[in-house]
């Protein structure tokens, strides 16, 4: 192992910085309604919806777990349907209505699905959870009383490495029950 370098090597008051060049990329304006609020932003066409939500709007609830749209951590609701926001360009969403995990609780009250994930221990590290909850919403919107098999089939597009899915399945069932009650 070579000797560790000293902090002084870096020049503590060194102001040697690279010049900051101008960044110019073609942008277009989009208007989007997210969780009930309307936003207007100039975006590069290649900006992915997930990066738009996280970096531009500041909604960091949806997560990025892969780049092949196979993990589902980035799932949000776009025009009433669950989609993987890592496989949609923000520019495609001009004029659309988007719901993210941050918009699920209303008036200071958790959504029944959130409540169910909490009660049933449907999460551990929590990274997949926003996507799981948004997909669960889609499952229950279409089928208010799903069987275990239908739940598992419905969650096919969402990976979780912590829970083994069992408590998630319980949470979806509990949410269905709570919604029916």
């Amino acid at each position: 192992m070579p000797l560790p370098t000293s902090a002084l090597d870096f020049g503590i008051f060194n102001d040697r910085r690279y010049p900051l060049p101008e960044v110019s990329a073609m942008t277009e304006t989009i208007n989007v309604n997210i969780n009930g609020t309307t936003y207007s932003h100039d975006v590069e066409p290649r900006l992915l919806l997930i990066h738009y939500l996280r970096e531009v709007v500041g909604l960091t609830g949806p997560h990025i777990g892969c780049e092949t749209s196979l993990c589902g951590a980035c799932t949000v609701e776009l025009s009433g349907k669950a989609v993987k926001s890592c496989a949609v360009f923000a520019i495609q969403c001009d004029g659309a209505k988007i719901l993210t995990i941050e918009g699920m609780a209303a008036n200071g009250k958790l959504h029944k699905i959130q409540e169910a994930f909490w009660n049933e221990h449907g999460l551990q590290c929590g990274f997949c959870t926003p996507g799981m909850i948004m997909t669960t919403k889609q499952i229950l919107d279409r089928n208010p009383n799903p069987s275990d098999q239908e739940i598992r089939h419905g969650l096919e597009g969402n990976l979780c490495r912590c829970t083994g899915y069992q408590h998630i399945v319980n949470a979806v069932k509990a949410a269905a029950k709570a919604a029916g009650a």
Partner: protein
Amino acid sequence: MIPQQFEYSAPKTLDEALGLLAEGARPLAGGMSLIPMMKLRLSNPEHLVDLGRIKDLSYIREQGTVIHIGATTTHHDVESSPLLRGKCPLLAETASHIGDVQVRNMGTIGGSVAHADPAADYPAALQALEAKIVLKGAKSERTVSAADFFVDTFTTALESGEIVREVIVPVDGSGTGTSYQKVLQPASGFAIVGIAVRVRKQGDKVAMARIGVTGLSNRAFRATAAEKALEGRSGSPAEIQAVAALVGQGVDANSDLHASADYRLHLASVYAAKALAVALGRIA
């Protein structure tokens, strides 16, 4: 990861889109295959034409003995369409096997068909349905059969500047039974093998058999030898076995980490038997 920069257009009319495509732009439909490929920089189009804003490109319409399905109709629209479930259940059933909930919400029939992934689900059904695919360019429109459309891996009859405008499938009256049976590639959810079967009986004999196969080789195809072998028979279990064994005959089968060529061929026969039995059982 992150795609390269590109120019983006979202025309409101098909003509406008076709004009841009004629200049070399690439179409973007649901983006379920294209966008991940762009993120990995395996595909780097300079100009994307989003078909999502074109009015009247998403529809499912019955017209006489056929059903027209617009290019930007999503897999979810297809799987949940009462019209298709009633009158072309094979297509609806096949759509329900594609990807996952989120992918089916965004992915479109036109995009999937044009992409021609050799492991995609739709092509098997379209072969079995003897579907027609309407291709439109700036100056032309033509209709090709599914059999002629799927040429090779990621290669179709589409010419530069053309898009899939719609897919036409037949109305299956009573007396027809169908089934799609699929072996999942466990990681990706694509088909290791997918078999779409469509059979009609007259009396106790099989009057018509159509077997579409995906995943097995470089393109989806119709197993015509197997179809012929079944027609005129009663469809007994022994006959089904014999017919199913013909599905992979002479096919240069794909081989990869998830299934060798031998195993794929074997699965094709097992799942063909399964699909045939289910389809025959569904004849009302």
